[in-house]
Structure formats: structure tokens, C-alpha cells
């Protein structure tokens, strides 16, 4: 188990990099004491945040980049997904389920993040970008400590 790690990557804002971001975050999470199911939850939350950055932040402008930070500190995983895109006018509204700007979408991005991470903080400024910070602690930590791992 790795107690401390930090990985920072910049991804071109293309749909293919949503999977790259998931993989990166999952690899860092897997170094901690997260269960397989919890790593899956991290993947889903990261997928939602990076998709939002690409689809809403940059509206598909592939020349822009999304920044992903994955930090393990004292067993807690912190994920930051940041873009310099359009920003969100009303963060509270955007976080409500089924609020979407596109009929092809479900408006569940933030709901999925909140359901799978312990904390989700959204900072956004119109015309300047959005920064989503998510934290998760492993539920199996005490068990793992008891095993002496």
C-alpha cells in the first residue's frame, strides 16, 4: 500500500481521454486501501467530472486541456478535475439531478459524483472555468489495518 502519492496530468479535451483519466485515477486509488467496488466508484466520479469539463466546459474544443490531479494522503484519495472553460453560472442549480443543457444527457453528472465520493466541492466562475474537488476514504481501512497490511 502507498500512503502518499500525487499524480498530475493534463489531457486534451477529447472524449477518448475520459477513459485515460479514469484509468489514471483508478491506478492511484488502487495503491490505497480501496476495495474493487470503491475503485469502480472513483472511476465513475472521475468519468463524470472529466466529461463535464469536455462537454460543458469546452463544448468539444479539442485544443483545450483538462487537468487531473490524484493525491493519496494518509489513505484519503483526493481528485481534482479542473478546466479553464465556460464555467457554470449557477452551481447549485447544476448540481441538482436531471438539470441538463442537452436533451441527449441525463443531468446526473454531479449526482453520480456525490453518490460515489465522500465530499464533492465545485468552484466555478463564468468565463474562467470550473474546478471539482472530490475526496474519498476507504471503508475497509480499519479492516486492512487489522490484517497488518
Amino acid at each position, binding site marked *: 500500500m502507498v500512503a502518499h502519492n500525487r499524480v498530475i496530468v493534463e489531457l486534451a479535451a477529447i*472524449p*477518448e481521454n*475520459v*477513459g485515460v483519466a*479514469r484509468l489514471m485515477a483508478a491506478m492511484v486509488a488502487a495503491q490505497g486501501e480501496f476495495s474493487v*467496488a470503491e475503485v*469502480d466508484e472513483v*472511476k*465513475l466520479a472521475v*468519468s*463524470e467530472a472529466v*466529461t463535464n469539463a*469536455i*462537454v460543458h466546459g469546452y463544448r468539444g474544443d479539442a485544443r483545450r486541456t483538462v487537468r487531473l490531479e490524484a493525491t493519496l494522503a494518509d489513505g484519503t484519495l483526493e481528485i481534482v478535475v479542473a478546466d479553464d472553460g465556460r464555467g457554470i453560472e449557477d452551481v447549485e442549480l447544476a448540481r441538482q439531478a436531471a438539470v*441538463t443543457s*442537452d*436533451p*441527449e*444527457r*441525463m443531468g*446526473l*453528472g454531479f*449526482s*453520480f459524483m456525490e*453518490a460515489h465520493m465522500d465530499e464533492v466541492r465545485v468552484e466555478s466562475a463564468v468565463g474562467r472555468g470550473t474546478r471539482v474537488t472530490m475526496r474519498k476514504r476507504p471503508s475497509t481501512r480499519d479492516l486492512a489495518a487489522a490484517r497488518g497490511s
Partner: protein
Amino acid sequence: MAAMEYELVGQSLVVRLAGELDLVAAARFKEAVEEILDRRPVRHLYVNLAGATFVDSAFLGSLLGRYRRISREGGRMGIIGVPPQVRPALELSGIFRTMDEFSTERDALSAG
């Protein structure tokens, strides 16, 4: 990377999807299914997720988009073979409130 396979059975289109189903798979699924719906006399749409290892809301949105068209035209849409690791996302999305779930393709196609 997602894999997709399409089969027409009578008036039903069966789409089999495998791998990680996200924004990339959503775009491919939308494009391919819309093209088939434009050209062929399809009434019902069944999506077999038995090979899926990951599903996010971008992909679920592409299911919902097709559901709107299929139901508008009087058809039925169903989800087949949901693997345990993708079930939480589907449950959380509430998609089963609008689409029926089946264990196998045979169950879906014989549902009438």
C-alpha cells in the same frame, strides 16, 4: 474500449455492447442506432449490456435519447443482461423506470 454488435430480429434491433461505455461509446451508439432506425423498419430496441465493464451518465444519456425516439414511434426499449458491476449506475440513474429489464435476449424478444 467499447465493442458494438447489431442484429435485426424481426422488428427488433438488438445491440450488444462490451467494454467501457462512456462518452466515446455514447456517440458511436447514437450514430449507429440512428442510422439503422432511419433505414430499417425497426420498432423495438434491446440493448444487451452483458459484456459491459463500465457505464457512466454520458452513455446512459445516449440510451435515453434513443428511448425518446423509440417510444415516440410506439416501440419498446429494454436492457438485457446487466452485469453486477454496472448495476449501481443504472439503478441510480432511474433508467429502469422507463425501460424494462431482461435477463436474456430470448426473454426480451419473447416479451411480445
